[in-house]
């Protein structure tokens, strides 16, 4: 059964149809790319999946349950972890504290247990610490744990975004343009890292503007153009697809 099902999702902004009747599915354990030229509707579809924008029509199901219209935090607790394209870290908090927020998001917490320091509260705090360290180790950020996020080198900040999402314990990790702003070496390192996460059993949806990263690591690629899905196939097939080439390179028009 598909882990994530997108069922005829449409999202309009006034007269603009940003996502137009898009369907698709991601099975457990897949590494899928979602690409498209600027303005294709990738980010809108992404926001519909994560609950930031409700769809105008259509339904999103996760693990068989509809999640359409749920608040982002509820969707996160169902098991969809996300990162942000333009890095939205908590700059005045340490790297450790940044990641701990994801862990708390998964486990939940109340004020009174922190106030009374009950046994349950201490157990949960230990659980949060353990999850946080685990996510830090996994992303190689453990040596930076004490730094403020604002003081972290740019390349590492991407990993902090991912670590925070991993700490929420996702079944599906959705990465929004993780390679933006990285040079070739850094992009290659990131590609290896995403592959490792996938090899460890995580289902990943990679939303990218840039074809190269996606074509290199994804098993399957969905292509959006002008809000519509124009292709959904393995990278080798998509690369030959005339519709895709047209969307990316433009049609030959008479000057």
């Amino acid at each position, binding site marked *: 059964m598909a882990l994530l099902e997108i069922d005829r999702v449409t999202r309009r*902004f*006034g007269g603009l149809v940003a996502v137009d009747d898009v369907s698709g599915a991601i099975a457990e354990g897949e590494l899928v790319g979602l690409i498209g030229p600027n303005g294709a509707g990738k980010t809108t579809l992404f926001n519909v999946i*994560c609950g*930031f924008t409700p769809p105008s029509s259509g339904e999103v199901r996760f693990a068989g349950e509809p999640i359409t219209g749920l*608040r*982002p*935090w509820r969707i*996160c*607790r169902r098991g969809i972890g*996300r990162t*942000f394209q333009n890095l*939205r*870290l*908590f*700059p*005045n*908090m340490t790297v450790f*504290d940044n990641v*701990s*927020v*994801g*862990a*708390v*998001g*998964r486990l939940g*917490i*109340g*004020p009174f*247990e*922190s*106030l009374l*320091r009950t046994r349950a509260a201490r157990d*949960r*705090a230990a659980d*949060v610490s353990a999850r946080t360290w685990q996510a830090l180790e996994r992303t190689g950020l453990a040596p930076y744990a004490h730094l403020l996020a604002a003081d972290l080198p740019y390349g590492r900040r991407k990993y902090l975004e991912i670590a*925070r*999402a991993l700490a*929420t314990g996702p079944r599906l990790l959705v990465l929004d343009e993780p390679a933006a702003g990285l040079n070739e070496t850094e992009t290659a390192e990131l590609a290896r890292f995403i592959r490792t996460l996938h090899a460890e059993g995580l289902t990943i949806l990679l939303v990218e503007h840039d074809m190269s990263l996606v074509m290199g690591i994804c098993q399957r690629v969905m292509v959006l153009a002008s809000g519509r899905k124009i292709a959904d196939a393995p990278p080798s097939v998509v690369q030959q697809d005339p519709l895709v080439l047209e969307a990316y390179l433009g049609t030959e028009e008479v000057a």
Partner: protein
Amino acid sequence: MRGVLAPLAVFAVLFGVLPAGLSAAGSGYLFRLADVTLIFCILSLSMQLITGVAGLLTLGHAAFYGIGAYTAAILSTRLGFDAGLTIPASGLVSALFGVLIALPTMRLVSIYFAVATLGLGEMIYVTLLNWVSFTRGPLGIGDIPPLRPFGFDLSSPLGTYLLIAALAALALLVVHRVAHSYYGNTLRALREDDQCADAMGLPVVRLKIETFAIATFLAGIAGALWAHTTGYVNPADFRFAESILILAMVVVGGLGSIPGAIVGAALLILLPEALRAIGRVRILAVGLIMFLCILFLPKGLFGEVTALDLVRRQFGAAWRGSPTDRPLGWR
């Protein structure tokens, strides 16, 4: 605040050094000054939780202080309740109002929230001022009995001081435990970026309401202590200027810092008193010191965030909204 040394030091100063020194001096004025400082410590600690930790700029905190004070005043003068009941009741009534106000306003972003709290704070002030049959309006309520919780007579300067100190220590413990825990981390995440916190699985609105409830509870208790120790409450004590004074304590001490809230409160209560010698210009001097603080210590004395950064984000966010509703182009 880790370890046992810091709590021990706080305990020793609050219940050893200070009361011993004050008793030795034997001055009612100094005792009163200590009481007022501690009451404002409770207020600044509670506002620190809302503004410094959770990042919600509130401009109406004095209103909750006022609700607490009037609850204590009315319960004790009309119904003859003693402080053992009026103090917790003041906290609860204030927290009730806090939650009622938080429910509709917590969805507002940044500067809109600040303006909403400003408006609601003034509404509460105007109500206290004009509901004459209930609050006696501008006359205020007098003859509020001193602190005699459950029949224990704590109306002596030392007894009053010790009760206030005990409640201030309790408030310190509450704010410390809420702020310095993983729960506190979630509140800081709201301050940094609440949309992102939402995406990380945090119920943003619920967390904000909880914070507001805890902080307004503490502000209500501070109000009850003020009412019982002053013996008289008047709407003018709970105006906008008082909210700004508490905000100034938090900002000068440093946003997000608990020692900052305490030092800020002590500074802004004790400094004007210490400067009495220079006469009328003392308030100017206090203003100047605050100004220089912000200029040269942008994070306050102990802060996690710069005050300017918080204000900039509060105001910046007001323009973040969608410009699609207005016609294109400018005339």
